[in-house]
């Protein structure tokens, strides 16, 4: 169900979420579990929707975090990648062609130049936001990297289902992004054994 809040209410919800997360981390009152749910867009399940929870009090990532955005059969795999801020994303060329990966728009701006089959380049996504990724040789290739300032995030699968691991019980402000649509926000309650449903317009 879409939820829209005025700034003061949103602030209060965020504070509540912060407090909940902080208390969870400090006291360990609730054992963290996977937050499972399903995303609907206009009543139908939706894939490749990035869901993340606000958690400003969450601890930083332990050590170096990496993810992979592969190039295979003239496609980026996956097409949508969500990472936490600070993640180093490997971009190997697993194809049989040369590629030139770049991002010129919002988010992380970079141009990796031409690199051969079997080699890889690394990009660190050091601020939150959406980066649109392209290949300058093959215009049909495109991908999105959504960098979020939270350890709690997931991408919905082909059935619209998602699972965010190790979420402490509590009330959270969530954000949802999908290609071609405005980002949406709302609140949800994470509790052991309870699945959530997110409705987007």
């Amino acid at each position, binding site marked *: 169900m879409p939820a829209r809040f005025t700034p003061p209410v949103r602030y209060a919800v965020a504070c509540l979420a912060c407090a909940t997360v902080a208390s969870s981390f400090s006291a360990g009152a609730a054992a963290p579990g996977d937050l499972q749910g399903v995303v609907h867009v206009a009543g139908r399940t939706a894939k490749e929707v990035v869901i993340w929870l606000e958690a400003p009090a969450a601890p930083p990532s332990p050590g170096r975090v990496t993810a992979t955005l592969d190039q295979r*059969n003239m496609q980026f795999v996956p097409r949508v990648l969500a990472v936490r801020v600070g993640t180093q994303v490997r971009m190997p060329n697993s194809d049989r062609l*040369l590629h*030139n990966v770049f991002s010129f728009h919002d988010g992380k701006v970079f141009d990796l*130049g031409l*690199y051969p089959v*079997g080699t890889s380049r690394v990009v660190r996504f050091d601020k939150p936001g959406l980066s649109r990724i392209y290949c300058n040789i093959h215009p049909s290739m495109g991908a999105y990297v959504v960098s979020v300032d939270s350890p709690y995030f997931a991408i919905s699968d082909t059935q619209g289902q998602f699972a965010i691991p190790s979420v402490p019980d509590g009330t959270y402000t969530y954000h949802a992004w999908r290609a071609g649509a405005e980002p949406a926000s709302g609140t949800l309650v994470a509790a052991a054994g309870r699945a959530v449903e997110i409705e987007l317009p």
Partner: protein
Amino acid sequence: MTGRIAFIALLACARPSSAQTGAVEVVQSAGMSNELIGGVGVQVRGLFQPAGRFRIYLEAAWGDRSSAGSDVFGTAYPYGGKVDAIENYGELTVQTSGLRFLKAGRYRTPFGLANASDHAYVGFLRPPLIRYGGYFALSSGYLEEGADLVAGVPHLSAEFSLGRSADVGSARRRPGALNKVGRIEGSLGPIIVGASVLRTMPDQPAYFAFGRATFRGVDARWMQAGVQIRGEWIDAVPFEGTTTKGGYLDAIVHTRVMGPVTALARAEKLDYDTPVAAYRLFTHRYVAATRIRIWRGLSTSLGVSHQGGRLTQHRPTAFDAGVSWALRKDFASGQ
């Protein structure tokens, strides 16, 4: 037959995977030139990965044009008015022990910048002079039916192909001894360079062309900030007593401010030398072209080329225009 046996052997080596992925792509194109030639074409490609390190590539094309009197539309696909099987191969990827790829079936002759995406119809309308079969050089329609091995590390690799000719289009090599192709490719920082050798039969009739054909070539590519520079140079003996030397240099630009527009500038030359003075061909060409992405898979290409020397092009300056529509469907199962 050689390629089919090798393909089946490769398939037997492949281990099934729990996840099968693939994609089917259809590209439809149409274009015309002020040389009063029109062309249409459809390419269908399938990429399948039934096993973890094994993939199958299938491709067929149909194309037709109102006249063969020019090299316009003579890119990576034949225009014979019938369906042709193009590349059909299986490839095993092994990223250990120095062996990297083993391919069997029917595939483009791995000489220089030979991938379909380098010279295919989607993009710019005229192939480089050294890639057009009618000029005693290479042909974009050269195909090998056999086995191909790539070994080495990513920054330096060697490739060797052994097979027989399975060409499409108007330039078809005569049957004879097996074709041998050797290639080395290395990268020096942002520059990727390669050198290739091809030993094969001529694509002219036996009463005209004696002996065998040998092609030697070098190629290089560099790309940064949306600017790609690439080129090839060949030094060939298309048949006994003749030589073909030539190459091209491309600058392909697609920077941030250009949005959906990609621009190409090409300078090229080709010299075919033969003891019979009347048949000698010394020519050069300059091309300016652009590809504009209109919406999703729909794009248009516009090109103007100016040439000197004797070629099949009717006019010294030609204008070409085309439109392409590409559809792609990816699928995955058994994740």
